[in-house]
């Protein structure tokens, strides 16, 4: 335990947190029946990937200098944040439209296109 507290933060720490966020988002997308829950899973997945970009671009972590992005990682993660905002706006509009037309947000009942 004290070993964990005294060793410097490395790239591995960030990658593990990013992996946990990514897996939580993927499981969230797979299990939630509420359309907004699926959206929240997508946000978690994007944030996990974003955290990896920032970690690979950071100068403050113990890591191999061959794996580094510099500021490019931060700029890409800014792009991801903007894309996530756009995606959330469109997806929310679709969910509200679906709710207005069908009076439900259960994704299992969106099966009108089923053959």
């Amino acid at each position, binding site marked *: 335990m004290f070993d964990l507290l*005294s060793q410097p933060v490395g790239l591995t720490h960030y990658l593990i947190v990013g992996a946990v966020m990514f897996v939580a988002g993927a499981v969230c997308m797979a299990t939630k029946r509420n359309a907004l829950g699926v959206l929240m899973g997508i*946000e*978690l997945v994007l944030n996990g990937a974003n955290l990896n970009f920032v970690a690979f671009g950071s100068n403050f972590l113990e890591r191999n200098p061959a794996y580094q992005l510099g500021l490019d990682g*931060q700029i890409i993660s800014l792009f991801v944040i903007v894309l996530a905002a756009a995606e959330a706006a469109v997806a*929310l509009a679709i969910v509200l439209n679906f709710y*207005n037309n069908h009076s439900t947000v259960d994704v299992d009942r969106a099966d009108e296109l089923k053959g």
Partner: protein
Amino acid sequence: MGNRNGGRWMGEINGHTVLFLFFGILTCLFSLAVVFSANVVRMAFYLILALAATSGLHFLAGADFVGTMQLVLYVGGTLVLLVFGVMLTAQNPFISLRTAGGDWIVAALVGGILLVILVPVAFQIGLPPQDAGDIEGLTQREAVASSEPVSVPTATRIGLGLLGVPGDDVSGYLLPFEIISIHLLVVLVGAAYLARAKRKVVVRQESQNIAGS
């Protein structure tokens, strides 16, 4: 940034590590809380907390501008939008939709496989190099990456990079910046078109029915 080469004795506590563990554990716990909570309102709240803790991790990695944008755009913008969506659709049968047991098993299987793939890769890639290496053979970026970190605000260099001025550890990003600007404009116009109210026609028909009867 604390002691990079380890203390004289094992118990010497690294402040950076303590803060990282605080924010990292909060992030993981709230992400898992989003998954295991059934109530959609609580899920939105846990998601806000998870993303705020993630911005703390960004600050600890030296990405001050990205951390600020995470707080301002994500927590302040996107999630407020999501909370509005929750409030507009939170009728009683939809607040907590139960998932079937079979879905949980399949999702746990997929998640477990993903975790088994990702965690060993994290341990493999994250290791620092075995020998210190000579600075001479490195490219300029690697030299920047292996030098002792200094805490310089990143906003100026990010802004110059977005304007297409390459720096010593950043490329020019003018074209992606323009593309993403147009993309955001088109997407917001499309979202406004999709979400517009269409109830007026129905109301007019109903009033005609009332007038006819």
